[in-house]
Structures are given as C-alpha cells and as structure tokens.
C-alpha cells in the first residue's frame, strides 16, 4: 500500500493552538473566561487533529517542514498512523481533563490556577509535537519542552515536599535525556548523517553489534519518561502533583510520550530486521518484563491509592515496551492499542482517586472501606477502570491484552506469555480488594458514618465519560484498531 505524502500545515497548527492559547490565558481577567478559553483551545486542537484522521485512514501521511535548522536536518512534522493515534487520544483527553480540573481546582481553592492552565496547554502542545515529529531531533526538542513544561505542574503546591519531588523528577528525566539520549542521537547522526524516521530504520550497516546494543540501551533508558526500572522512581515522586496533573500527564501524556519515543526509536531508528538479526529485541523484552513484574509486586504493598496507581502505570507501560520489542505484527498492534486502552482506563482511576480525595480528603486505601455506599457513581467508574486495566472482557483493555498475548505466541516466546499472565493476575490482586472493600463490607467496618456528598458535577461527568468510553472501545475499537494495523503495516510490513 503505497502512501502518498500530503504537504499541509495542519500538524503545525495542531501543535501551535495550545501554544498560542498561553498568552490568551494569561490575559484573561476572570476565572470563567480563562476556563472557557481552555475549553475552546482543547476542542479546537482535537478538531484539527481529528480533521487529519480521514487523510491518514486513506493511507496518506502528512509532512510539513517548520524550520531548516541544520543542513539536511529540519524541524519537521510527519503524521503517520502511529503518531495520529497517540495525538488523537491525548488531545481528546485534554478536553475531559480540563473539565475535571475546573471542578477539582475550584473545590480545593487551589492557588496559581492561571499558571496551572498555561503550563497544561504548553505540555499538551509538546505532547502533540512529539506525536507528529518526523525526526529524532524534533522529537528530542519537544521531549525536552515537555519535561520543562511539566516541572511547574508537578511542583504546583510549592512546599518542601514538592521541592524535593521536583528535584527527583528533573534529575531522572532531564538528566537521563541529556546524559543518554543526546550522545546517542549525536553518535547516530555523526555516523549515518541523518535522523529521519524510516519505515525499516535508517541504520544500515553502520554499526557493529556491541555499539548497537549500547545505543539501544542508551535510547531505551534515556527516555526515562517510559518509566523503565531503574529510572522509574520519578513517577511515584510526581504523585505529589494535583490529581488532574497526575491524571492526564502521568497516565496519558508524559508517560505515553516516553513509551511512544521508545517505540519510535525501535521501529523508526533501528528498524525491526536489524534488531531481529542481532537478536537485540529480546534484551529490551527482558528489561520490560523485569519492570512489569517488579512494578506489579511493589504496587501490592503501596497503601496510598495514587502511589499504587503510579506503580501500576509503570507496569502497564512496560507492557507496551514489551509489545513493541517483540516485533511481531500482533504484538505491536497490541502495544499500540494498549496505549489507547490504558490511557482511558488509567485516567478513569486517577479521576476517581481525585474525586475521593476532593470529597472526603482520604488518600490511603486502608481508609476507604465502605466508600462505595457513599460515592456509588465514582466507585462504579473505578470498577470499570480497574476491569479495563486488568484486561477483562467488558472493557477495552481486554482487546489490547488479547493482541499482546497473540503477539507473544506469534513471536514464539512463551516466557513473555507467562510474564503477561502473571502480571495480569497481580493487577487483579492489587485492584480488586479496593473495589471489594468499597462495596461489600459490614456496617461496623464502614468508616464513612457521616454523609459524604458526591463530588461536584464537574468532576463526576468526566469520570463517567472516560469509563463509558473504555466500555465502548471494547465493542467498537474501530478508529484505533484500524490505525494500529496501518501503523504495523508501515513498520513491520507483516
């Protein structure tokens, strides 16, 4: 299927919308105008991204060169199926998260809300920038922009705890990107002369096996946002941020950018046949599976709800890395789908965590016994989110896990099949007790004697929307499944 390239400036417009929204937000007088502007920017961005969907579905790819920054290496955008899927999800979820953060920030009377919304818009423009980047340089540019734009969000409370977690956040993310990604990128450019992503990688025979291994490890660990052990501890530390931040950023935008970059590097830079020939992909698979198992085990022991969700995210991310590294068509499709499914599932869970905190000020799971009776809607949404993350039928998570499992079989690596199954069990082990204790508990155990009123409507509606979408995706995974299959077609031609 030959892909014609269409030259249009829509990818640039998509990135710039939220960037231009920042001065507008800064100049708004009252809260309401500012929030309406956020909404307008979010919906506009989603519409522009969606307007490119039919083109991509028809098999074209959209290219646009912004600046000829270096001879032969411009800052340029190339929208393909994989990038489109990720951009679609993140821009759509931005709309929902803005709604949610309005309710959340208002109910908690947070300070510095204008600054919060501006940096939120900035990080979204960086996320979409990463999704559409055509070469490793543009990807690195937006990756750095994202790290810097999310720092003020993570340290929003400006207290001692925020300061130390901000320090770890930056140390891991900025440190890894400068110490590992930059030299690897420069080394590749010095030896091959180009950085543009190509269907089967652009390495050719330029490197020996050992340098290739070093480069792969540098790039996989360099993108610390993918939360691969041992460079993962910034994620739990970032939980100190307000919940909408951890919801969108640490469930969807930031972490998925890390995984997206790793996937881009594996498929676009190295290329599947090069990795398969040197059997390097099993190295990446083993790293990912170690992270899956370890993260799931640690999640069991976490009492804070947000910290448990954080470690579960680390586990789920490594599913995607594992899927991509297996390099079999089903596995890569499953990995791409999992980006979408996990996004919706995990964002629902974070919304619920935020709602519980906003309504009752409770953070730890041990204090949540019997909350289901008081907050029925939140907890049912929480249940659906849990089912989707574990991968049980009525929710979309099942489909992506289904493809992942098929992928391990297709790549005839049964050991990773075992890893997937064990970790799914572990997921169930650390999520289901929460739900069980929330609904089925005896009267005297219930800790919520007094009436706990449900969360304001602004928080509840986004909750339910994402939960219902998780369910709908199980029945109609259509746009994302088609995109995923087209993406796989481009990468592996399987």
């Amino acid at each position, binding site marked *: 299927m030959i892909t014609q390239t269409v030259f249009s400036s829509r990818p640039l417009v998509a990135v710039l919308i939220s960037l231009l929204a920042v001065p507008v937000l800064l100049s708004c007088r009252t809260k309401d105008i500012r929030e309406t502007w956020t909404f307008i920017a979010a919906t506009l961005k989603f519409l522009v991204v969606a307007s490119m969907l039919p083109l991509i579905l028809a098999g074209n790819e959209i290219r646009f060169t912004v*600046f*000829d*920054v*270096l*001879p032969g290496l*411009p*800052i340029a955008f190339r929208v393909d199926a994989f990038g489109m899927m990720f951009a679609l999800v993140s821009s759509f979820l931005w709309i929902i998260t803005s709604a949610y953060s309005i309710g959340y920030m208002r109910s*908690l*009377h947070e*300070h510095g809300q204008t600054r919060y919304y501006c940096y939120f818009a900035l990080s979204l423009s960086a996320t979409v920038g990463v999704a559409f980047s055509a070469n490793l*340089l543009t990807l*690195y*540019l937006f990756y*750095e922009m994202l790290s*810097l734009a999310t720092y*003020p969000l993570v*340290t929003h*409370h*400006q*207290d*001692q*705890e*925020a*300061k130390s977690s*901000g*320090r770890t956040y*930056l140390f891991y993310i*900025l*440190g890894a990107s*400068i*110490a590992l990604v*930059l*030299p690897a990128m*420069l*080394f590749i*450019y*010095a*030896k091959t002369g180009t950085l543009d992503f190509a269907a089967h990688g652009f390495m050719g025979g330029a490197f020996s096996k050992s340098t290739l291994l070093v480069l792969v490890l540098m790039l996989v660990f360099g993108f610390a946002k993918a939360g691969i052990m041992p460079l993962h501890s910034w994620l739990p530390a970032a939980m100190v941020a307000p919940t909408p931040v951890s919801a969108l950023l640490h469930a969807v935008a930031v972490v998925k950018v890390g995984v997206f970059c790793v996937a881009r590097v594996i498929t676009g830079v190295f290329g599947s046949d090069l990795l398969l020939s040197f059997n390097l992909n099993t190295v990446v698979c083993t790293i990912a599976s170690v992270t899956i198992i370890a993260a799931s085990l640690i999640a069991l022991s976490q009492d804070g709800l947000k910290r448990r969700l954080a470690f579960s995210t680390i586990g789920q991310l490594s599913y995607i890395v594992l899927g991509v590294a297996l390099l079999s068509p089903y596995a890569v499709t499953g990995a791409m789908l999992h980006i979408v499914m996990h996004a919706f599932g995990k964002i629902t869970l974070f919304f619920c965590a935020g709602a519980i905190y906003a309504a009752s000020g409770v953070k730890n799971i041990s204090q949540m016994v019997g909350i289901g009776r008081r907050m029925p809607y939140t907890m049912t949404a929480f249940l659906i989110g849990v089912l989707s993350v574990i991968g049980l039928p009525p929710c979309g998570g099942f489909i992506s896990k289904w493809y992942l499992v098929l992928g391990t079989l297709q790549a005839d690596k049964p050991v990773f099949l075992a890893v997937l199954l064990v970790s799914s069990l572990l997921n169930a082990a650390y999520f289901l007790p929460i739900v069980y204790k929330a609904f089925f508990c005896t009267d005297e155990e219930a800790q919520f004697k007094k009436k706990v009123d449900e969360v304001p409507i602004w928080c509840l509606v986004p909750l339910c929307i994402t939960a219902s979408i998780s369910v709908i995706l199980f029945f109609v995974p259509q746009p994302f499944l088609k995109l995923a299959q087209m993406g796989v077609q481009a990468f592996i031609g399987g």
Partner: protein
Amino acid sequence: MIRHLPALLVIVPLLTALTVSALSWVAPRLCLPLTFGCIGASLASSIGILVEVIKSGPVVYTMGGWSAPVGIVYVIDYLSAPVLVVVTAVALINLIASSKQIDRDFSDKKGTFYTLYILFVTGMVGIVATGDAFNLYVLLEIAALTGYSLIGIGHERAPLSSLNYLFIGTIGASFYLLGVGYLYIATGSLNMADLARFMAMPEHGTSTMVMFAFIICMTGLFIKMGLFPLHGWLPNAYSYASPASSALVAPLTTKVMIYAMIRVGLYVFTPAYVFGRLQVGGAMVWIAVAAIVFGSLLALAQKSLFKMLTYIVIAEVGYMVGGFFLGNRMGITGSALHIINDAAMTLCLFLAAGAITYRTKSDDFKDLKGLFHQMPFTMTAFTVGALAVIGVPPTCGFFSKWYLIIGGIQAGHYGYAAALIFSSLVNAVLFFRIFETAYFDQPGDGKGHHHGHHKHHKHKNKMVEAPVSMIVPLMITALGLIALGIYTGDIVTHVIQAAIPGGIA
C-alpha cells in the same frame, strides 16, 4: 560609500568617542545620544558589510592606500563579518539596558564612561576586522586598557581584581607581541595573508623559530581569553565590576580573543601547519576538557550569581578552544558558531543578573527568593538564557553543542564529547538550583516553609520588576537566542562553512 564601509565601521565610533570625550566637559547632555548614534551606525555598517561579504566574498580595505605587505590592510571575510555584527549588537543592547545602571554607578563621570565604552567597542571591532598582526596587538591593548578602567570602578574589591587583570592581561598581550616579533624575524612581514604565504614554504615549516612563535602567540591569546590554567583573573574581574561594565566586557573579551585565536590559527599559521605539522591538537583538546570540567565544577561551588556566571564563561571558553583544536570541519564550525551563540547567551545572563541586582541590591543565592513572582519578565529571560547554556533545543546553545560534540565524535576524541555532556548536566543542576530558590521560597522567610494543601497566598507579593529600559533589551536578547538557534542552518551554510579553508577534512 559601500567601498569605505570597513573603514567607517571603525572610524565613526573613534571620531564619536573623541567628540563625546570633548563634549563631556562642554555639553554633557549630548553624550548619550551621540553614543547611541555611533554604536547604532557601526551596527548598521557591520550588517551592511555582512551582506556585502555574503554577496561578493571577502572585502579588503587598504589603509592609507598602501597595498598588503607594505601598509595595513583590513580583511573582512566570512569569519569576521558575523562576529562584527554580534559585537556591535551586544554593545548596542547592553548600552540600552544599562543606561539606568550607569546613571546610578557613574553619575558624575558619565561622559568619560561613554567614551571608554565606545573605545572598548572600537578596539573589539578593530581586532575582528584587522588583517595585520601588529595592528591586532595595538587594538588588543586599547580594548584591554578600556576594559581595565571600566572594571576598575565597582564593588569593594573591584580595583584590586582590575589590577590583577591588568598584570595578567599585560603578560598575555606582551607574549602575543613577542610571538609576532618571532614571526617578523622569521619572515620579515607583518601582514597575516603574507605570513600565511611564508608558512607554506618548506624552510619555514620546519624552523623552530616559527614553531616557538606559534607557542608564544597562542599562550598570549590563551592568557587573554582566560583558558583554564590561566583563568585566575577572570572570576574576580567580572563579578566585582559594576553590572553595566561586566555585561559589556564579559560577552565580548573572551569571544573576540577566541576569534583572534581562530584567525591566527587558520589564516596565519595555516591549518596544514597547526594540525598537520605540529600535531598540537590532541593535547590542546585535553586542556580544553580540563577547562570545561573544572569550569563547571567551580561554578557549582559558587554562592553568588555573578561569580557563577563567570565560571560558566570559563567553561564556555573550553568549549570553543576544544572545538577549534579538534581540527575537523565540524569542530571548527561549532567553535565559530559558538562564538556568536555564546556572546548572545552570556549577554542575556549578565543583563538578567544585572536587572536582578538592580532591584535586590545583592546577587547572593539566598537573596533570590520568590523572584518568579516579583520579577516575572526578568526571570523568564533568565530561564531562556539558562536553557541556552544547558543546551536545550530550540535555543542556540543546543546547536553549537551539536556541532562540537559531532566534531568530537568524528575526530575520535570521546573525552571532549563526554566533557560537553557532563558540563550540560552540571549547568542543568546549577540553574535549577537557582530556579528552586526563585520559584519555591517566599521572599523574606528563612527556609522553604511547609504549608498545607490549602495554603492561600494572602500576602500576594506585588511585582517589583526592573525598569522597562532593562526589560525590553533583555526580552530582545532572549528572543535572539531562540532566533539564533532556529537560523543556525542558514548561518552555518551561508557564512561559517565558507570561512573554513579547504585544507580541513
């Protein structure tokens, strides 16, 4: 008129400096407008020359009508034209930005300050434009003398550090003079192009006189630019001076000295001699690595903002010297590009530090609390400058590091590439340490106090911004950093690539 642009570029500032020095006694009010006019005019003429050079190749201007070896000749080619524009632009922006600071520090001797300011710029422009080795020494001395006096007045230790700077600067300049003397004995000529012609001859290539001339010339220039083992004078000289003069001297002196090193290295001692015959590249790059590593570490150990910035300047000198002595096309492009980028970056940081000290009267780290609330514009410009120094795209710092590191990799000098990465990491720690104090702590409280989830800012600290005349140039410089980054491709392909003689791989 175009034919005389190289001369006008230097003569207009000189004549204006003299009129300003005379007028400061007769009609002091006229001094400032005249200074603005003259530096603006020399910026315009340097841009005119740059366009001329890009259009029709190097411009040669014979002073006094005497051709090359006899008289003094101005050669403005692809290497000097962009540096000229940067030097005059930095001088103009700094003049606008520090006019308030000048009123505060030198209120009674403003006329003389402006004269010394213009003479310093004339010296710098002359060094960049000249094609004669001895003329470069004379202009070196003008720039140095004006530099010593501009730095001499400042905080309590300014005269002592300026005197130390004078001693070491004079040793450097005299070594350069001695080197030119050795070259003169060996060849009999003083003109750069003529000397290069002699270098090609075999009997000069092997003579120890020329080799020793190279060593002494380069040592002199290394002293003047503050390369690592010889950098002792730089931190005190730039941090105790008044912010107005250190924001002029810091971005220009070291960069123009590095330009002089590249000019002498490439166009007097031809690259075949420097990299082929002497094999001096490898050792020099290790010295540069030491400069980068120690410069960054010492910057980490500093407690005050200006001191930290000066050590960053020392590390940046290591970048450029290392880039040049790698000996390959990428390294030299990176070093030449970094002259332009680093001048802009250092200007942005020093102006921001000047604006901060203008308000908070002290540049100690513990006095920078809560600056993001009080001085948002200055701090955003400071952040852009910091990101440029760290090397985050799309700022210009990233792209010069791009060329330097690739030059290091292609030359097989991984120590140099690793030092650059290490220095970026240390710079990141340096600046985020400042952002933490500026972002988190509230002004006036001892330590970052704990406050609960619902803390509301009752005492909304009102905005105490620096005066507009400081903010606007600062913003222009910050945007300039990003523009320089984005237009790197054009700068390199049109200007710097043509500046490197063919002999280099």
